[in-house]
């Protein structure tokens, strides 16, 4: 196997005082190949976004301590200084943020913002950069890009803004794109369009894509592989079809069970959704051993020890003392509520 585009080993992000650190991301390893989509899934506060920011070292203003190795195309980038890192950002690793309403500067026209992003990496004249900006808007399927270049962000709808945000991230022609909840702020029909666009662009440009989301529907639609995070740790990693067919970690099970399905037959009895009892533990009060144990119906005394990630095959691993086996899988016999 060739070297992966991004190879992260034992990433750890700590906040707070060294004596009583808050560990936001713990011993996280992941790989992304060119042209591949890795989805990172988890509840709010499980460390997804911190991971994304730690990869490009953008945890600004905080006293975050990052350790572990981040290799981009086989080259270690976690030891680069700030100036060299700036050359990586945008040029090699692009990022898309959650809320297109705040990801664009309200007082600059989208053309100017694109030109700024283009000129940050390519020594182009303004006219050339403007032509490139127009190409980028065409690429993200914005109608009449020529005219829209001089418009300010408030004249774009949410979906259109997210397209502009994507165009901005593509300005430096990155080979890895990190999308942090790119469709959370959009309504469902626009979500599908944006995901479709991301998939097309990814194919066109051969980019690796890290998709951070809490929406399993998004995962099913776009990802090749899925990584499930809980309280800063990777609890399960599988190819996408495997994850939905045979989730192994009880937390993944719970996530899938908690997802409402479309109910078409109105006369059928309503299926009560299963929820995961309890809350994600606070970073300051992480229990010894498995962080999910308190909410897990399979927990036993063994769970007071941190489970090691068990590799099941080359692409699948799970960190649990009592993983679901293929036989006892029969997905969640749903409880029936009284009609």
């Amino acid at each position, binding site marked *: 196997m060739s070297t992966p585009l991004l190879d992260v080993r034992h990433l750890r992000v700590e906040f707070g005082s060294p004596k009583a650190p808050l560990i936001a991301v713990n011993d996280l390893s992941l790989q992304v190949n060119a042209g591949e989509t890795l989805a990172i899934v988890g509840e709010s506060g499980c460390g997804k976004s911190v991971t994304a920011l730690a990869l490009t070292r953008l945890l600004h*203003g905080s006293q975050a301590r990052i350790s572990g190795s981040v290799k981009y195309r086989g080259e270690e980038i976690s030891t680069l200084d700030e100036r060299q890192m700036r050359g990586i*950002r*945008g040029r090699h690793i*692009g*990022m898309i943020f959650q809320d297109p309403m*705040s990801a664009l500067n*309200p007082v600059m026209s989208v053309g100017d913002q694109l030109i700024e992003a283009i000129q*940050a990496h390519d020594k182009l004249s303004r006219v050339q950069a403007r032509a490139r900006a127009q190409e980028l808007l065409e690429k993200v399927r914005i109608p009449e890009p020529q005219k829209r270049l001089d418009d300010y962000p408030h004249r774009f709808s949410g979906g259109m803004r997210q397209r502009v945000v994507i165009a901005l991230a593509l300005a430096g022609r990155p080979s890895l794109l990190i999308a942090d909840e790119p469709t959370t702020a959009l309504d469902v029909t626009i979500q599908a369009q944006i995901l479709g666009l991301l998939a097309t662009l990814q194919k066109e440009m051969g980019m690796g894509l890290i998709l951070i989301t809490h929406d399993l529907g998004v995962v099913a639609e776009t990802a090749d592989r899925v990584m499930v995070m809980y309280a800063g740790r990777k609890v399960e990693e599988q190819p996408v079809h495997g994850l939905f067919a045979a989730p192994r970690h009880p937390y993944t099970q719970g996530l899938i069970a908690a997802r409402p399905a479309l109910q078409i037959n109105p006369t059928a009895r309503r299926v009560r959704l299963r929820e995961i009892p309890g809350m994600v533990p606070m970073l300051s009060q992480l229990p010894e051993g498995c962080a999910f144990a308190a909410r897990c119906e399979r927990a036993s005394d063994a769970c007071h020890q941190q489970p090691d990630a068990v590799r099941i095959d080359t692409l699948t691993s799970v960190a649990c003392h009592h993983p679901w086996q293929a036989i006892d899988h029969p997905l969640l016999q749903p409880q029936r509520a009284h009609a």
Partner: protein
Amino acid sequence: MNRIKSIMRARSMLLGLIILALICVAALSANLIYPADPFDIVARANLWPGSPGYPLGTDMLGRDMTSGMLHAARISLIVGVGAAGLSVALGTLIGVVSGYFGGWVDDCLMRLTELFQTMPSFLFAILLVVILQPSIGSIVFAIGITSWPQISRLVRAEAMRVRQQDFVSAALTMGIQHPAIIWRHILPNSLAPVIVAASILIAQAILTEASLSFLGLGDPSVISWGSMVGAGRSSLRTAWYMTAVPGAAIFLAVMGFMYLGNGLNDLLNPRTEVR
């Protein structure tokens, strides 16, 4: 109700603009109407306002009050705008750097700001003017250097707010350099309150200059409203117009800038729904 309010607001801003326009016209026309030195003795002393040829009368040395008022308008405007400009430039620079970078840079710059804030600014200004010798330049410098902390506090808070916005993170992820981010993303999004504060600063600077001049710390080679009030106070009981006329001018100018500032505040503040 809102309608009435909006008209009232617009009126007060309009009034401010008219007052300021009149003062500017007065300042600009001073050399055209009264090309002579306003310190020249031109008539009998203590002529009351309304005397033929001297609409605002003469002072106790026989100097033309009208000429003095017009020439003094220039000094007040220069000092007001100059000092506010200096203080806005300094305050914005320090505030934006402090708010954007945070951390120890912020700590150092804010301690410096507090150092300036804890000193009584008027006494500090007096001290500076005395040390530097009174002149227009030193007065502008003294007022500017004592009034920037409020601007820097304001800009810092705004910069910290804008810093948290996704488009700044996005710009960082694009590999854009810090100065460019500050210049193009942070500053344009944090200047609205500064514009308001600047107009109020000008008003304060005019008052401070008047106070300095009243104390005899003004530039002795130019005439200003403050120095006219100071000169007239010795004959306050016999010729009160000598203090009242320049005093009224100071009052009007300060009021004009205040109205302008408040009007701008309403206009630029998105939370007042009135346009």
